[in-house]
């Protein structure tokens, strides 16, 4: 039922995109009608100068209105007909490119457009709406034109800075081109196919310094301050267990005190070149359909992971990012871009648990979220808490805490038109909130005991 409702709403919305006039126009018509009705009641006594002038001025206004609107409609129609004729005849050269950006403080994507041939309505606008990920539509937007040296140009070449809420990969399927007049009363739409994909990138934030060291030796060129145990010489012994290698039993000890002990092959290696970063997107809680976790929490998580990665790289370490899910291997310019892409496209998953995912011998840094399984974390941290840095990102802290002052502020100041406010409300009403909070609390307590572990707060 709900789905059907959503489908029909979606359908209606789509139909709405193709209505050849705007709400603005309907409102104008309503206001004019109301004005006209009121004027009719003011018509006055017949055979008076007032009545005659009144009727004349009214006629003047109506005629002028009709003239200017007809003109507006004609300009739109010309552009629309030209475009559809060209579309059928020669085809439209419609190109979308999405250059990746250096600075990425906001989830904003610059989209470049090239449309040819297109005739702009006189004084009017050509607007575009993009359909992406099969079901979503962007806002209707105006392309910022690049400087053009032509007087009459049939090309639209420009950019649009698209505010996108999620850090992920987007796929553009279609573009709806709107021809609008100067009043924006008429808006005739035409769909053209487009195909492009891009991913929005996580922003870099400064965060608390992380104590972590490389543990994996791929090259023996870098000495490390803290020696790490590696497989090698026989130094320690331990009690024999059933699946131990019988060849390692130290018979000398057995001879002395009848104890079956085996040698632990362990040495301390002074070399380690690489730092392996294990971010876990595993969720132990049921987050199905929770928009807050899916969007703002995930964004936050990705941003922090990326920041951690950047911080480690900046320190001069060779950092290797080990994704916990399949990421399509596209050709990227650099390893860093690849990591960025991996982070962008990652999602919460339930397939690969932390325990199976982390290779404790290599791991330098493990990033966990509020959704991670406490037991598994405990298990790992107890075993390797002194060697591996655990970084915990409390997701709920991606929202700023509410203060009394905020309420006062709310009274007078409008929130940004983002969804943050909505998410906040949704989250405070969500059943999941308590579970996550409990999980978070436990994880925090757990991590506090270990020196190497860090809890990364939003502004910390």
């Amino acid at each position, binding site marked *: 039922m709900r789905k059907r409702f959503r489908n029909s709403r979606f359908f209606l919305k789509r139909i709405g995109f193709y209505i050849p006039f705007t709400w*603005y126009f309907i409102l*104008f018509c309503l206001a004019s009608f109301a004005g006209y009705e009121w004027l009719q009641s003011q018509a006055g006594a017949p055979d008076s100068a007032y009545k005659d*002038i*009144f009727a*004349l001025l009214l006629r003047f206004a109506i005629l002028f209105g009709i003239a200017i609107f007809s003109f507006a409609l004609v300009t739109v129609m010309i552009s629309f007909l030209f475009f559809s004729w060209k579309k059928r005849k020669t085809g439209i050269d419609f190109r979308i490119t999405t250059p990746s950006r250096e600075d990425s403080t906001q989830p904003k994507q610059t989209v470049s457009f090239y449309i040819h041939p297109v005739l702009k309505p*006189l004084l009017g606008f050509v607007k575009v709406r993009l359909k992406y990920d099969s079901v979503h539509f962007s806002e209707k937007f105006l392309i910022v034109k690049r400087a053009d040296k032509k007087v009459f140009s049939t090309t639209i070449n420009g950019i649009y800075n698209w505010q996108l809420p999620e850090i992920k990969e987007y796929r553009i399927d279609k573009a709806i081109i709107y021809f609008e007049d100067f009043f924006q009363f008429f808006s005739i739409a035409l769909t053209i196919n487009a195909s492009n994909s891009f991913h929005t990138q996580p922003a870099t934030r400064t965060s608390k310094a992380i104590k972590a060291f490389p543990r994996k030796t791929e090259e023996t060129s870098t000495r490390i301050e803290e020696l790490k145990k590696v497989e090698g010489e026989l130094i320690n012994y331990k009690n024999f267990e059933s699946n131990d290698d019988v060849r390692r039993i130290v018979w000398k000890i057995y001879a002395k005190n009848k104890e079956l002990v085996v040698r632990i092959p362990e040495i301390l290696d002074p070399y380690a070149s690489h730092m392996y970063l294990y971010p876990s997107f595993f969720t132990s809680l049921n987050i199905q359909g929770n928009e807050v976790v899916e969007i703002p929490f995930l964004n936050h998580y990705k941003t922090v992971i990326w920041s951690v990665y950047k911080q480690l790289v900046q320190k001069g370490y060779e950092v290797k990012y080990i994704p916990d899910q399949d990421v399509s291997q596209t050709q990227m310019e650099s390893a860093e871009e690849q990591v960025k892409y991996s982070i962008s496209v990652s999602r919460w998953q339930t397939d690969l648990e932390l325990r199976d995912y982390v290779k404790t011998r290599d791991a330098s840094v493990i990033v966990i979220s509020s959704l991670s399984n406490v037991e598994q974390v405990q298990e790992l941290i107890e075993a390797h808490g002194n060697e591996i840095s655990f970084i915990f990102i409390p997701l709920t802290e991606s929202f700023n805490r509410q203060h009394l002052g905020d309420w006062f502020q709310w009274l007078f*100041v409008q929130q*940004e038109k983002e969804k943050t406010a909505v998410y906040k409300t949704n989250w405070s009403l969500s059943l999941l909130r308590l579970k996550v909070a409990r999980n978070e609390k436990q994880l925090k307590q757990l991590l506090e005991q270990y020196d190497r572990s860090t809890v990364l707060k939003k502004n910390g």
Partner: protein
Amino acid sequence: MGLGKVHSWKKVLAQLVLLAVPTALFFFYMLWDVNRFYNILENNWIRQGIYFSSGLGAAIIFYAFRFRFISTATIVFAICYFTYKFLGGLTIGEFDAFYFSIQFLIFTILFCLGWLSGFGFSRSRYFTIGWSVLLLVTQIVIVSKTTDIKVETLINAFVPVLAYAFYIIYTSELIRNMNEDEKHFAWFIIKRLSGFGVIVLILFLIVFNILKNDFKAVEKEWGNSQADYNKGKDSESMTQKDKNGGVSNKDQTKLAGSLSKDKQLIFVAHLDNYFPDGKTPNPLYFTSCYYTKFDTLTQTFEIDSLMPYNDLFSPDPSRIPLYFSKIDSSVIKNTFATKNRQVVTADIYKVALSATNYLAPSTGFFCQPLSVPKEYKSQYKSVYRAKMWVSDLNSAYFIYNPAGNKQLEAFQELRFEKLREVKKISGPDERFMKYYTFMPKDEEYKKISVLAKQITANAPTMIDKMLAIRDYFLSKDEFGQPLFKYSDNPGIPGMPSANKLTYFLLENRKGYCAYYAGATLFMLRSLGIPSRVAAGYLTVDRSSKNPGWYWFYADQAHAWTQVYFQDYGWMDFDTTVPDANTQQSPQPDGTPPLNPPQTYLVADGEVVSVDLAKKQISMKITKLLYHDKDYTTAPAKDLLTDVSMASITADTGTVQLSAIKQGMHITAVSYAEALKTILAEKNDSVAAIIEKLPKPVPVDEIKILVKEEIQALKKKEKEMMQVPTDWFRIIKIFLVILAAFIVFVFLSPWLIWIFINAKAKRAKTDAAYYRYRAAMYYLNQLGLTKSELGPQQFAMLMDQQYSTHFNAFNNVYQKLKYSTVSLTASEQKTVQEFYPAFIKQIAKQTPVKTRFSRFLNIYNTIHYFTQPKIS
């Protein structure tokens, strides 16, 4: 606490400049207009405009931040409200507190209105729609109520609002669509706005052309000679001044809040009308015009030149030659008056009365300008003699409102007895009756009708009905106080559109003559009695020393009622009650001018020559009056006059002899004793008389008559001054200039090419330079720019593309430019042969369509002239 912004400063600036400024200007205009009607505003439209603008501007800036509207506006309004309450509650100097609180209330209302609209412009997309429609609709109603019905006035008042309404919708959308990332926003806005302006102008012209005839029809139907009421206050005067300061009765009179009048002497008249005893002067009211129409909307009495059986004789005395007369006997016929009528003569000496004005007791039919005796020239501007078809029963003594004066009442009874003989209400025909008994059909006028019936219930005849109405105005209320009072400042009803006559009759009961005359008129008309309002001067006989001489001052300008009686014609009745407060001021009547001297010769004609040294004028006479006998000459005869003793006058007063120019139309008058004895024989022709006269003829007076053409020219000048700027013409001219400019802009690349090409072809010296320049220009215009290439690289590229020999030429050109070695013969040949072939080759390979479109591209041309030159 970070306070985010909704709009960037760029956008806020655009909103302020493009939305707030026009709106504020529009409001200034509207407040100025409103201030003219509401005294409470005290004509502080500038200050009030500033209140509104400050609210508007402040709100636009304030709401550029993320402030919520409801909470913040509530605080603003609450502050205003409590301040108002506080000011109202102040006890010190109650009046001041009241005054301040009212002023503050005006401020609050305007500021808050500005604040609201500022918010609307800043945040609400839909606000502009409502705002525009509201203003447009209001303006339609306001403009429709105008009294000044002219096409220009209507268009000037309405079109700016119409344009503003669409402008606001357009601009607010433009600003809303303004992209923060756009770099050249100002240029974008300018381009868009000018484009929009041009479209609106063109559409407006088209629509106006369609409706032009309708506008003209409205002007023709309703706009007949409306006076200018834009005087600021709701005040009215019974007289008006022309451009020379001359006073005349107005061709309409409006029922206004107050009457302004002064004590200026207007004219002096000698009326040759006496009671049968031949000694007692019998004064008559002097009539200027009749108001037969009433505009219910503006509540104004008006002259109607189309009134049936027009009996108004209104010649222009300044246009009639001295001593010659103008007669219209048709007005006598149109009075349909046969009983108790006689011809009476009056001499009117104008002091402040307009030169063009003709005043006479009704019904005047004759006008003869006379010359003012020399010794009175400084006192009187001009004089004319009028003859009237006057009824005995129209004596001022009969007409005066007796207001309890028993003697006068008894005297007037004589008249009423006579008029009681007229039993039947009737006119010459149906049209006449219908016209003079017309009454607006309206609830308010029905009230008048009811009152009239009530008052005249017991009056059997027309005259009794008339008297009943007069007596009603004189009646007393239950406290013994007069029911009606005279007041020059009766005030206006609270509602501007309320009917002033019913307000006067039923509520206020105070007014000046126009109210009494108007109320009487509609009461009579509601009873089916044909009537009209007459305007002119009431006559007061103040002097017993000079019988027949009357002095007229500005405060004697008056309006009264005329009733049509079968056979007796139009009879005057004055129902205005005497002014209890200000008695007629005891103006001393001066000494009347002596009778003009006997004129022997009056010659009318054109100036042939003026001899300033001898003070002689030679004129070609067309008309001659000699010893009161009229001669017309054909062909015209020359007459030499001696003007050394003559006083020369024009319309406006005494002038110098040098003012007389050849070809002027003058009238020369002579009182010379020498002529007294030279008598004309019975059959003498003009030529014979001139023969007898001394040469030159001594002349005592010369009057310059402004020639028709000059008059027409002056009239045109005057019209020019009055006609408001013809905006359509200006718009048309502007559009044509704009179109020409656009065409010029697009043609300029081609024009420049023609010049450069011609120069290249013809150049003898520096041929290589001019040809190189032309080639480069041509290529640049076709979009082939050198940009970062070197000259040689570029030339080679061109050669490659078009198989030309540009490089060879370029080498020669570069050699010429940088080296001092002279060219070889083959190089000379290259220079000679290169250019035409090159252009031809390029043209051949570029389609005409491409060339055409590229040559329209001004950007390429600009690029050519702005590209960095390597020095």
